[in-house]
């Protein structure tokens, strides 16, 4: 490939032009855009994974905090009922004591939820730091190369305007640009494949991670819920 200063300068010029088109949101060539439709759909999936992972982390944190509060309140209410129940010698006092006991137990059970939740938080966070950021790097590299490729296409379109294959000088210039389009296309196509594969893998591995980690979580609330229902039924 031609590596003269002029050529490099021209490459930079068209790349910059494309960057400008992109950042200013000017309308791009519809055919070029639609030929990347599959890639853009994958990027959409990637951004959704990125966004929902962030949200999930926030929600887990809040959920955990609320569980703590709830457990505390539950525990206090239980202790209150128990102490009041012990002073009341009627049947109502007995019921109060039993309910208080159940509430204290339930508050402890509730805290047990925190462990699998912590685990989920850690796993999701690791996933975000490793898998998502790795894919993100590839996406960035792909976007760089996409800009270069689209810049080369702009250049090619420009030299195509007044092309005459019987003019040696024009053809030389044309061939040079053609090489540039080919090279950037090859690089872009490879990264495009990489991105699509990585996003597919990312989606699949997140599904895997969630279904795996959530199994332990799902077992706990059931047992605590069941316990609470049984005790309440017994009492009332």
């Amino acid at each position, binding site marked *: 490939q031609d590596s003269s200063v002029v050529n490099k300068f021209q490459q930079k010029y068209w790349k910059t032009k494309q960057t400008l088109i992109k950042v200013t949101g000017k309308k791009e*060539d519809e*055919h*070029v855009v*639609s*030929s*990347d439709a599959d890639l853009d759909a994958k990027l959409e999936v990637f951004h959704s994974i990125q966004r929902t992972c962030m949200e999930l982390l926030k929600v887990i944190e809040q959920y955990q905090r609320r569980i703590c509060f709830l457990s505390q309140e539950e525990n206090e209410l239980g202790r209150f009922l128990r102490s009041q129940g012990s002073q009341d010698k009627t049947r109502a006092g007995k019921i109060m004591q039993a309910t208080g006991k159940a509430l204290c137990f339930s508050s402890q059970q509730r805290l047990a939820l925190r462990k699998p939740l912590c685990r989920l938080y850690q796993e999701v966070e690791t996933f975000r730091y490793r898998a998502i950021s790795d894919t993100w790097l590839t996406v960035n590299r792909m976007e760089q190369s996409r800009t270069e490729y689209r810049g080369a*296409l702009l250049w*090619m*379109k420009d030299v*195509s*305007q007044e*092309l005459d*294959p*019987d003019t040696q000088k024009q053809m030389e210039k044309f061939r040079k640009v*053609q090489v540039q*389009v*080919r090279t950037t*296309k090859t690089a872009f196509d490879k990264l495009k494949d990489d991105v699509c594969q990585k996003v597919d893998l990312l989606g699949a591995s997140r599904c895997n991670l969630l279904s795996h980690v959530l199994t332990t979580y799902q077992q706990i609330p059931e047992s605590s819920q069941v316990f609470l229902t049984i005790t309440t039924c017994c009492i009332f």
Partner: protein
Amino acid sequence: MAYAYLFKYIIIGDTVGKSCLLLQFTDKRFQPVHDLTIVEFGARMITIDGKQIKLQIWDTAGQESFRSITRSYYRGAAGALLVYDITRDTFNHLTTWLEDARQHSNSNMVIMLIGNKDLESRREVKKEEGEAFAREHGLIFMETSAKTASNVEEAFINTAKEIYEKIQEGVFDINNEANGIKIGPQHPTTNSTLSGSQGGQQAGGGCC
């Protein structure tokens, strides 16, 4: 090489073996695997009515991302070969290609519809369908095979004949290069109707 006329052709259509068709016509050989075409050029001399005619052929990209670039090549084409593939459903895209061609070229451009490839067993588009489409849109139609070279010569030459006839009828203004026709450097323009064919021959001979 000297010529009486130069006709600019453009080959368009999906990824259907356009480059194979061109290679068969210019080099008389078949090469099944090609690099991705962006635009390639071919040229060959043919003789019509005793005149040497140079066909300058622009072979374009079928891939969608090059569509806008391809459009700038229509300008100044006298003939277009619109190629589809009889084994695949590229037939459905013909309307889009035709619209594109009509929109970006001069109205007199001769368009030849070509159903390419000879894998009869994998045929999905009947010859009659191609014929009907051509009739409906006023195109010339032919089925070719770049592999066996069947009808390849004819496709290019018949298109040239059609253009040549249009010149004779005065439909094409040959002095306007936007029509995709150039008059050869030694062509006697003054008495072309009388000794045109002979003049063309001399021009061809003089060069070689």
